């Protein structure tokens, strides 16, 4: 007979009991922990949804910074119930004459906090767990990540130079070997009394002399050279005054790629006057600050900076430095979240510039015709550094006016003239040119 373990029903029962007991006890334990500690992950979500408009973990905003807020409140002699009361109805707490509540209210310019009656005790526990979680831990990790990231391209750079150096060395050795072989071969030839071809060729008529003596060839060559010269001279003169591809270095490295491309901010968000006025306008810095009051640090794409960006030096630290330049220009004190009043203008370099004798109106094109900004300005959402995409010459304007139809939808203004002119020209849809878009006086007066 074989011996089988756990045959005995009592030992089986006991084992099962032990397992159940262990499971249950861990469940109890974790529940117990949740009751006092809260869940930082859930807290983060709630914090980002409800609190982050006015509070940050690491700096003052509209309200106080919230890192380790519970221990601060406890230091002031209050308990967690006080926090519950404050979050759900701070105005009531202030009215009740609570000394600490009044102190905070006065410290933050008597701006009342929006009440959050919908947050339960558990929600607030979770948020407190998030604020109490050591904020420093992600930072070293991020720093280490950053260091690793910055180290990686450096090492690959060394690899590249090493490979290149080795290649140059091998190439040099080959050249030296070739020269040496050539030398020894010549010496052998000389010793054997072989006459080299070069010396024999001396006796023939040199090719350039033969060329000069043939007058027809000389004539053809001169005509060809003159035509080619005229072609290049014409091309060179035609590009004078055209700034296509002009890409100046701006005082603050503003990336259209990040703002319009990655974040998909509408062009007219910043260039708002393009809708309503002649110029599209460089946004004043208060428009930047509408978002950058909040965004003080560039955290990059979720996938991290591309190797191409890193090769150009566009690291997260670089972009954060550029945001800092904006803060210096508008006089924003990041620590206290207030303006210092010390401003200095940013001297942007103008790229698109029409001569003074041309009239161009942005609102007519953007609002009336509904032309996409990219039609003239190119793929701005892909430009890390802005440049002039179109030549902005008269021929370029005219070509577009000849090809583009008039936008009639929702525009009663053109209805009558469009009906009359389309009958006259016998076409269904008029182009801008047929509506008089080529008349000199439209743009030159």
């Amino acid at each position, binding site marked *: 007979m074989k011996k089988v373990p756990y045959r005995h029903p009592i030992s089986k029962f006991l084992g099962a009991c032990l397992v159940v007991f262990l499971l249950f006890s861990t469940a109890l334990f974790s529940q117990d922990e949740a009751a006092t500690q809260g869940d930082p992950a859930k807290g983060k979500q709630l914090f980002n949804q409800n609190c*982050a408009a*006015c509070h940050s973990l690491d700096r003052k905003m509209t309200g106080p910074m919230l890192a380790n807020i519970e221990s601060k409140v406890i230091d002031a002699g209050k308990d967690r119930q006080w926090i519950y009361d404050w979050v759900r109805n701070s105005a009531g707490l202030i009215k009740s004459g609570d000394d600490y509540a009044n102190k905070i209210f006065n410290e933050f310019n008597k*701006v009342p906090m929006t009440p959050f009656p919908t947050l339960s005790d558990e929600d607030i526990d979770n948020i407190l767990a998030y604020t109490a979680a050591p904020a420093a831990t992600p930072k070293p990790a991020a720093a280490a990540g950053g260091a690793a990231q910055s180290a990686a391209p450096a090492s690959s750079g060394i690899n590249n130079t090493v490979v290149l150096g080795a290649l140059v060395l091998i190439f040099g050795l080959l050249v030296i070997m070739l020269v040496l072989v050539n030398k020894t071969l010549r010496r052998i030839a000389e010793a054997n009394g072989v006459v080299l071809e070069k010396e024999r060729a001396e006796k023939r008529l040199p090719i350039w002399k033969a060329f000069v003596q043939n007058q027809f060839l000389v004539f053809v060559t001169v005509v060809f050279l003159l035509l080619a010269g005229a072609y290049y001279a014409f091309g060179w003169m035609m590009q004078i005054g055209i700034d296509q591809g002009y890409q*100046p270095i701006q005082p603050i490295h503003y990336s259209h790629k990040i703002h319009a491309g990655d974040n998909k901010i509408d062009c*007219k968000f910043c260039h708002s006057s393009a809708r309503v006025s002649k110029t599209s306008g460089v946004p*004043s810095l208060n428009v930047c600050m*509408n*978002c950058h009051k*909040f965004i003080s640090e560039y955290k990059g794409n979720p996938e991290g900076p591309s190797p191409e960006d890193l090769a150009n030096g566009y690291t997260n630290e670089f972009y954060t430095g550029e945001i800092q330049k904006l803060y210096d220009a508008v006089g924003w004190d990041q620590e206290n979240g207030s303006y210092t009043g010390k401003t200095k203008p940013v001297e942007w370099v103008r790229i698109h510039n029409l001569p*003074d004798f041309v009239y161009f109106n942005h609102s007519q094109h953007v609002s009336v015709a509904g032309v996409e900004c990219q039609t003239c300005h190119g793929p701005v959402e892909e430009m890390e550094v802005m440049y002039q995409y179109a030549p902005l010459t008269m021929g370029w304007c005219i070509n577009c006016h000849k090809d583009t139809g008039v936008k009639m939808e929702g525009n009663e203004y053109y209805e009558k003239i469009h009906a009359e002119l389309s009958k006259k020209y016998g076409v269904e849809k008029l182009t801008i040119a047929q509506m008089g878009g080529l008349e000199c006086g439209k743009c030159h007066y």
Partner: protein
Amino acid sequence: MNSFCKIAMVLGFMALVTSCANPNRPNYQYMPDMYVPVTYETYSEVGFLPSGMEAEQPVAHTIPRGWMPYKYDNTPDGKAAAKLQKSPLDSLNTDNDIAKGGELYNIYCAICHGGKGDGQGNLVKREKILGVPKYNDVARDITVGDVYHTIYYGLNAMGSYANQLNYTERWQVSEYVMKLKKDL
């Protein structure tokens, strides 16, 4: 041999001229007199003004054409009073106003507040800007006057949009926001 030298020189000169092209500098012009205006250009530097800039703030105690002073202050009391405002736009033209407001909303507001007003715009989804509330938040209970006041002055992390939107446009957007709140 002499002619070869000359051709080489011409070619070399051409190469030199074309290699001068520098994307960081504007090109030369035939007659700058015709291109550069006599008047001051927008945003240009001006010697005689104290700030040195062409762009100036309105003179104190004046308002730009088409603008009206706003009677409520940027204080909690002002906001409470502004909450009771009614929209001054023509109620017979509401459909047009809301359509226009929607267009503007999608340019200026949807990037944070989301196309539906649920606080889930692209910048929020990418965690660039946080804490954007939904329009139907019970505790806030926004009204059309409230929205106008907030666009005018900004609130908490939101800045003022009074320089991007004019008086009528602000009310159009406010009405559209109330429509979103209703639909949410």
